[in-house]
């Protein structure tokens, strides 16, 4: 096969199958991007909440409830 100059029009037409090839790639990209994004966001959120809760519970464990009248800032 001889190398042919790249032609954008021909490339986008996909030999008449553009209506099937491009949605396949587009859908794959979007779905994989979505699961990556949601998983990342979920991980960040839960890890942050867990870290904060862990600090809070440790702080309350360090300070036994001896002086309940003292305001906690």
């Amino acid at each position, binding site marked *: *096969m001889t190398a042919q100059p*790249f032609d954008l029009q021909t*490339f986008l037409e*996909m*030999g*008449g*199958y553009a209506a*099937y*090839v491009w*949605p*396949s*790639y587009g*859908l*794959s990209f979007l*779905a*994989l991007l*979505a*699961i*990556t994004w949601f*998983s*990342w966001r*979920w*991980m960040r959120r*839960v*890890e942050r*909440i*867990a870290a904060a*809760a*862990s600090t809070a*519970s*440790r702080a309350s*464990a360090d300070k036994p409830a001896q002086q309940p009248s003292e305001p906690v800032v």
Partner: protein
Amino acid sequence: MTATNEKASIPAMNIWYYANPERFAGLARTLLPWLMGSAIIAAVTGTVWGLMIAPPDYQQGEAMRIIYVHVPAAWMSMFVYAVMAISSAVAFIWKHPLADVAAKASAPIGAVFTALALATGMLWGKPMWGAWWVWDARLTSVLILFFLYLGYIVLWNAIEEPARAARAARILALVGAINIPIIKFSVDWWNTLHQASSVMRMDGPTMPASMLWPLLIMALAYNLLYAAILMMRMRAEIAERRLRSIRLGLEPSPA
């Protein structure tokens, strides 16, 4: 093996070293950028190669390029389910604390791969077979796989008590595993429009190298992406379990 030897063994070789969820979360944190980075590089390489460099098929023309997103998704749909089934077995037999976490974290990723295999398959089937969908053995068994994933996810969410939910989910994952060989061999056992395997064959691939390479690179990309998302979801799952134990006042001492 003596206790000292066991301690000296390489951590990566010992699945029990990472049985401590916090230790595993640390490993996941280290691996994540490497997995994600290499997944992106492989995906870009595979896409450019598949769309621009690989030759069109002599029968199917340019429509054949759908293979580079269809087949990796279909392989992953089965691979992820196999991971879930094996993890469930490990959870039952050895009670490894991360086995349920790995299985639960895998399910939504597997569901996405299966949905993509079905959707890209329909987009390929329409121009080649003249129909978006046919109720043959291959397509039907993959649709059942998709529902197995959904059922597994629903089961985890439907049962309040984590230990009972885990047990029910393991049973579903193991029973559903029977579908995996059915999918694999459906094209050989029954009449179907779906073409037979051209890569994973006993007698070696029948596909020319110019098409096989981009396909394998895309498959690698999908595997790496699965691993990366799995690390994220397992970290999230571990953090959620920790949060639950903190709220119940059972915070374990820091590792």
